[in-house]
């Protein structure tokens, strides 16, 4: 568009070429570490230690993955993570959307009160320790509930949904009310269907967020029986006892001798990342949509 008005000088062309080159390099640098891990995860362990594996596995093997999938801790971690995503996303979406709808009801006298009640929490919070003590008192430590209940209502998403609904003509809801529908019914049968684009964007943010959470696991669920996949990966990164365990098993079961902590870590990293990378192309456009919806605020 602008280019029409500018003569393409030599300097301009040089800039364009170097810009493309630079951004190509940038793209490569951003993606390569992931790719490198992918390649290492498919390589034999002892061989990988020699280094020099850059683009293709030198000695291909699926053993690292096989060992991981036989490992029950990884599988429970995966189940917990998936459960988190499912429960956490659906509950937060429902509660925040409901609140978003309520704050969009024009004649509701408590509308401003509810809105401010939650907006304040966006800026003021108790901090890590008072929250921890509260969870302690509520008996939520070492439970699954703590993965979703404290996050039930998100003021940010409430605002997004609320401003979206404010653009919807009130007559839609009034008609239903005149017909005697309850507010909950209006919510499920009218609000939800017309808000699908917003809800889709918000649910994707929520799913990614829930999948990536690890610190609440570390802080609250210290006993380890509710460990998520992220936590499993973290343990693996930081503890060398995994290394010893692998070595011991490798000696005992000869067929798994081709793994090392390095390849196991690489495989685990890929397992944790793959769900996001794979679904990424599909939901990518919702992120942009979500931002513009949020920028109404």
């Amino acid at each position, binding site marked *: *568009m*602008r*280019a029409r*008005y*500018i003569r393409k*000088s030599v300097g*301009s062309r040089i*800039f*364009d070429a170097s*810009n493309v080159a630079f*951004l190509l390099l*940038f*793209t490569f640098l*951003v993606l390569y*570490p*992931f790719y*490198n*891990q992918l390649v*290492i995860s498919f390589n034999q362990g002892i061989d990988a230690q020699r*280094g020099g594996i850059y683009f293709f596995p030198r000695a291909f093997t699926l053993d690292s993955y096989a060992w991981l999938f036989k490992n029950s801790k990884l599988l429970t971690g995966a189940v917990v993570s998936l459960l988190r995503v499912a429960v956490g996303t659906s509950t937060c979406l429902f509660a925040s959307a*409901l609140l978003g709808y*309520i704050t969009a009801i024009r004649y*509701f006298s408590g509308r401003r009160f*509810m809105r401010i*009640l*939650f907006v304040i*929490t966006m800026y*003021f*919070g*108790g*901090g*890590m*320790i*008072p929250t*921890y*003590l*509260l969870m302690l008192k509520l008996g939520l430590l070492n439970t699954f509930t703590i993965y979703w209940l*404290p996050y*039930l*209502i998100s003021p940010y998403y409430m605002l997004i949904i609320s401003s979206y609904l404010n653009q919807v003509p009130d007559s839609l809801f009034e008609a239903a009310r005149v017909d005697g529908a*309850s*507010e909950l019914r209006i919510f499920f049968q009218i609000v939800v269907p017309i808000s699908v684009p917003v809800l889709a964007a918000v649910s994707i943010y929520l799913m*990614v967020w829930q999948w*990536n*959470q*690890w*610190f609440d696991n570390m*802080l609250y669920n210290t006993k380890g029986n509710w460990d998520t996949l*992220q936590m499993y*990966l*973290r343990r693996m*990164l930081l503890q060398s006892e995994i290394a010893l365990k692998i070595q011991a098993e490798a000696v005992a079961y000869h067929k798994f001798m081709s793994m090392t902590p390095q390849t196991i870590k690489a495989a*685990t*990293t890929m397992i*944790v990342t793959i769900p*996001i*990378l794979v679904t*990424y*192309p599909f939901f990518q456009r919702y992120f*942009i949509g979500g931002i513009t919806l949020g920028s109404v605020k």
Partner: protein
Amino acid sequence: MAIMQPRVFSIRLHRTVQREGQIWLICLPIIAWAVVFCYLPIYGIATAFIQYVPGKPIMRSPWVGLQYFAEFFKNPEFGMIMRNTLAIGGLNILFGFPAPIILALLINELSQGPFKKVVQTVSYVPYFVSWVVMASLIFALLGSEGLLNKLLLSLHLTERSILFLGEGKYFWGIIVIANIWKGIGWSSIIYLSAIAGIDQELYQAGAVDGLGRAGMAWHIILPGIRATILLLFILQMGDILNAGFEQQLLLGTPQTRSFYEVIETYAYRYGIQMGRYAFGTAVEFMKSIIGLGLVFSLNSLFRRTVKISVV
């Protein structure tokens, strides 16, 4: 509403209950949730000012005022912690703030097409990956057996592996680069959409005035997104004390502690790991007060000089 409100309060109340009763009913559990999970912790900040004994209600505990705050300031590690926090936060802003702007400007200069889309899409992949995964990638890259060292060794640029993650002096650089890697693409989206909002006529006027592409960028684009830049700058400055937390916990090692310990990790270490709840609360609270103060003072400064305001 065109309907006149009746003067008698009881009738008004009755009407309100009729129309809004259901809504208020739904609101009750919502309000209860907010009180429990959002406002009770705020009340818990009071533990920073009392001699806290677990189990004893706040109201009945002896008041110690600013004792914990004083204790934090007098702590010999205080200097190190503040230095790390400000250094990491400051470097994050120094390098991490311009980076997405520059990326947005460069991407904007690409002609429309698949390459432009690919660059954008790829640039925000790291944003969606967790810090645990990032840490794993960083270990694999910078570890003593990692990719970078293997590369350096094979090119004979160094005789022995450089312990990037084991020596404190590299830590700040690593963290800043990691933050940029993770956030640059995502933040650039905001700037790109701001750039898209610039009036096209300004470009034409600039061309008439003889501006080249560099001139366009400097005289039209940057001033055009000035509001966005300053807004985000204020917000990020207010965050300067939030020099990261997950990154330090994941990337830090005991050897690098003197470089990675920041206010939040300190509060976590002493507040929760060692159970000194009141002390940890005081430390965290102090940090948020300073952060708020920074936002407000920067905001009023900007409001008076350049007429931009967040609050």
